[in-house]
């Protein structure tokens, strides 16, 4: 079935992968820092930051897209209608899922473990790398998978800020939309490609989580 995809549609698959991977690569570190701060801080600003993070999740993607387009107009007009604009849109809508999943993972770790590490002379960076990160590994993998799935499926905001330019900003959902509008035959192969990509991602993330657990068991031997 995938053999029926023509070069334009293969390009949509490639652009989707490129955009979604770049989006996750850009948001992952800030999201981890933000999740750690939300999980551990007692700041009064926490409620405001929490609300701002959830906004892209609850607003219609078109509104997020229009907001981003207005922002890009005032900051960098050259960014709009490029694949980087699609990266920004996908990143913004994926952040809430990554932050919330990571935050739940970090909150489940006993905060006294970080205190123990600190009494043993570890710097905050070392505490994060050697205690927090390994302990919240399943949450990180799960969060990245969810966020990436959201990024690769992003449609509304991407359409507004990046347009639907074949071979340039056209991602899988946009290509499917175009095919559906014109009654093209490649809607279903594109849908199958999406499903295969999603299943592969879930399989890889589950394997990584299982491998992490297995390593712990092996260490016990």
């Amino acid at each position: 079935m995938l053999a029926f995809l023509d070069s334009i549609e293969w390009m949509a698959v490639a652009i989707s992968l490129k955009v979604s991977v770049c989006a996750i690569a850009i948001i992952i570190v800030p999201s981890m820092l933000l999740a750690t701060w939300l999980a551990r801080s007692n700041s009064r600003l926490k409620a405001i930051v929490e609300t701002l993070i959830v906004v892209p999740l609850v607003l219609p993607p078109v509104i997020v897209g229009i907001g981003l387009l207005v922002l890009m107009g005032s900051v960098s007009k050259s960014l709009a209608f490029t694949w980087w604009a699609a990266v920004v849109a996908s990143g913004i809508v994926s952040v809430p899922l990554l932050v919330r999943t990571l935050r739940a993972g970090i909150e489940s770790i006993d905060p006294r473990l970080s205190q123990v590490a600190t009494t043993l002379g570890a710097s905050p960076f070392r505490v994060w790398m050697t205690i927090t990160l390994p302990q919240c590994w399943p949450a990180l993998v799960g969060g990245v998978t969810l966020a990436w799935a959201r990024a690769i499926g992003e449609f509304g905001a991407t359409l507004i800020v990046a347009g639907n330019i074949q071979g340039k900003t056209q991602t899988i959902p946009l290509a499917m939309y175009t095919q559906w509008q014109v009654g093209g035959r490649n809607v279903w192969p594109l849908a199958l490609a999406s499903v295969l990509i999603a299943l592969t991602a879930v399989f890889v993330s589950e394997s990584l989580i299982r491998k992490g657990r297995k390593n712990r068991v092996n260490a016990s031997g």
Partner: protein
Amino acid sequence: MLRAKLQKQLEPFVLQTDLTLNARVTGVFGSSGCGKTTLLNCIAGLTNPDEGIIRVGETDFYDSTKRINVPCRHRQVGYVFQEGLLFDHLTVRQNLTYSRHERTGPKLEQVVDVLELGHVLHRSASKLSGGESRRVAIGRAILSAPRLLLLDEPLTGLDRRMSGKTLSYIQSVLDAFDMQTIYVSHSISDIVYLCNEVVVVDRGKVIQQGTPTELLGAMVSADRAPLPTLKNIFPLTICKSPGSDSTVTGKLGDQTLIISGNAPEGDVTAMVYARDVILANQKPIGISARNVLSGRIERIESNDARCVVSVDVGVMWMVEITRSARDELKLEVAADVFVIVKASAIQLIETTPRPR
């Protein structure tokens, strides 16, 4: 020397201390929620006092007037939390060497030897028993080359047998590594066994500071109910293997004890409840109890109903008797007495390593 003059608002009282601690091992005794752990957290730098001074030796850790506040990670304070709190995703060896202070502090091999952790070194920390995890936590703190060791109720959650075994390991560690230690506990027996000095905290205030026997005396005199179950915990050397009557012989200083049960030759820790010990002012003749030790009374503390007599039999033993028994025997400080214990009343806790 530790100086801790500090104030911190807690709910619903203020933690207020003005302590100068010079003893090698100081016990901090008090009920739950009285501020003991907050005091340790302030010393370690995990919590900031509202104001005050915290100084170890000549180094100021905290001084509100001079605006000094050394970060926790630079204080070099070994802190053993309740429940051990090991890093479960690491092996025992990785836990022990986490602090990277092996070059300046005790050697890993030495700590592993004293705490008998060699057989679990490559095991995951998540696969340890309760007693093993406490030993690893203690070893991890020791290997951070601390200037001060803080032990916050390290026996919490362990059963009686494991608790006694771990206590003897703590004694071995304190004997082997010379460092000022603060030991927080609910158990007066543990404090009498381990500590040279004790501080009693009640609702954030230090209400007493002195030797463990002085504390015990004050508790008896104040008729605090319930007075905790008193135990005598002491090191013993088993010098004779089981005989035909299933007993072993142990040396306690110059005195010999006969104990029911089986134990290999070597050093052990033994325990006997203060209420299971009998006092006599003359050497008894024709008695079934196997152990009659001579000793001298060092202290007598009593209230309306109970009396705790501290007798030096080579180590200090607490004997709990009634007030009428004290009056009838005319017991006085410095009097020579005989301490009588049944062979079955002495419990051998565990073979423990002794410092080399």
